C-alpha cells in the first residue's frame, strides 16, 4: 500500500509520485501519515516535509506554509513555495540565515518584525533541510 503524494506550488508541481510515508509539520506539531490514514485537512506551517520513498530512503523538502489534504491514500499539499533538499545550496542557505537574523535584530515596528520573523523561519527551515541530509 502506498500513498500518492502531490506537492504543488503556484509556479510548478514539485512532487508527484508514490511514497510510503510522510511526516508533515503542521501548526500544531508534526504528524506522520501512513497508508490508510483517516481523512484530514490541515494547515501547514513553515517547516520540513520528510518523505519515505518506496526504497526506504528518506527525502526532505522545505515547505513555506500552506495546506494539506489527506484523502483515501491520496495526499495533496499546496504550499506557497517548496524547495527540494537537493536544490538548496548550503553556503547560500547559511548566508541567507545570517542575513535574516541580522534583519530581525534591526527590524522596527510590528510589521517589519513579523516579516523579519517569517524570513528567519524560512531561512532556518532551509538550513535544517541541508543539515538533515548531511
Amino acid at each position, binding site marked *: 500500500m502506498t500513498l500518492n503524494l502531490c506537492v504543488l506550488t*503556484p509556479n510548478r508541481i514539485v512532487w508527484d509520485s508514490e511514497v510510503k510515508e510522510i511526516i508533515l509539520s503542521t501548526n500544531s506539531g508534526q504528524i506522520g501519515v501512513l497508508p490508510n490514514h483517516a481523512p484530514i485537512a490541515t494547515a501547514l506551517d513553515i517547516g520540513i516535509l520528510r518523505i519515505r520513498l518506496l526504497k526506504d530512503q528518506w527525502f526532505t523538502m522545505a515547505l513555506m506554509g500552506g495546506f494539506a489534504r489527506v484523502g483515501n491514500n491520496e495526499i495533496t499539499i499546496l504550499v*506557497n513555495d517548496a524547495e527540494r533538499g537537493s536544490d538548496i545550496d548550503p553556503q547560500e542557505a547559511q548566508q541567507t540565515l545570517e542575513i535574516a537574523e541580522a534583519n530581525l535584530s534591526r527590524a522596527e515596528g510590528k510589521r517589519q518584525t513579523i516579516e523579519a520573523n517569517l524570513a528567519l523561519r524560512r531561512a532556518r527551515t532551509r538550513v535544517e533541510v541541508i543539515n538533515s541530509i548531511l
Partner: protein
Amino acid sequence: MYFLQILTLAVSVTLHTSTPPHLQRFRRMQSAQQRCLRPWRLVVSNVVSNFSVCSSRDLGRLPHHEQIFRELDPKGARFISTQVVRNRMKSVKNIQKITKAMKMVAASKLRAVQQRTENSRGLWQPFTALLGDNPSTDVKKNVIVTISSDKGLCGGINSTSVKMSKALYKLNAGPEKEVKYVVLGEKAKAQFVRDSKKAIEISITELQKYPLNYTQVSVLADDILKNVEYDALRIVFNKFQSVVQFIPTVATILSPEVVEREAEAGGKLGDLDSYEIEGGETKGEILQNLAEFQFSCTMFNGVLENACSELGARMSAMDSSSRNAGDMLDRLTLTYNRTRQASITTELIEIISGASALTG
C-alpha cells in the same frame, strides 16, 4: 459679355462651395488624413471608416475605383493624382507591418505565459476536489471580481467578461441582496464606469507592469479580502482553451460561514465533515485560512489564464487586420495602375488631337 463672365464666376463659385452633405464628411476626412498620415491609429480609423461609410451610402453601387474617385475627390472630377493613391498605399503598408509585428510579439509572449498557466491549473483543483464548485448557492452578499486586460486591440474578450459580469449582477440582484464589483484592468473599468459606477468597490489597473507572480497576486487578494465583505466571491475571467478558443468562466469561492451552512445541507460540502480539521486552534480559523488561500490561488490562475487569452486574442485580431490590410493594398494597387494608365491615355489623346488640329 459681362453677363457671361458673371455667370461663369457664379457657376464656378457654386461648384466649389456646394458639396452634397454626404460628401462633406469625406472631404473633411480626406483633408484630415492628408494632414496627419503619421499617427497610425488615426489612419486606421480613417481608412477603415472611409471604406465602411462608403459602402453604406448609395456610392456602394458604384464600382470600386469609382468609389475611391468619389471619396478622394468629392467634386466629382474624374482624374485624381496618383500621388493620393500612393500615399494611401504607403500608410496601409505601414499598418500591415505594424500589425504583423504586434502579432509576433503576442505570439512570443504567449509561449512563456502558457507554460506558467498550465502549471498553475493544478492549484485550484484540490480545492474543488475538497469543497466542490457551487456557483448556484444563494447568498446575500456577492462580490464579482472581473479580470480584464489593460491594453486594447485584443478582440472581444473584455466585452465578453463584462457582459458575463453584468449578467451575474442581474442574476444575483434582489431584495436584501447586494452585489459589488471588483475590477481588475483598464478595459473593464472603462466599461463599468459608464453605467454601474456606484457598484464598483475597488478597481485595480496596471497588473501586468511587472511579470505576474504569486506574491503580487496574493497581496492583491489580501487587499480585496480585507476591504470587501462577502459571502461569495465570483471571479470572472477568460479561460485559455486553445490559441483560438477563449471561454468566459466563473469561479465561485464561498466564505467559511456559507461553507458551514452548506455543509449541513449535504452534497460535496457535506463530505467536508468527514475530514478531521487539524493544524490550528479552531476549525473556524482553519476554514478561514483555507478560504483565503483558495481565493488567492484561484485568482492567480484566473489572472494567468486571462493574460494568455488576451495574448491569443490579440494574435488573431492582428492577424486578421494584416490580412485585411493586404487585401486593401491589392485593391489600391489596381486602382493605382488604372489611374496611371488613365492619365497616360489622356496625355496621349491631348497630344494627338493637338497634333491633328495643327496638321489639319
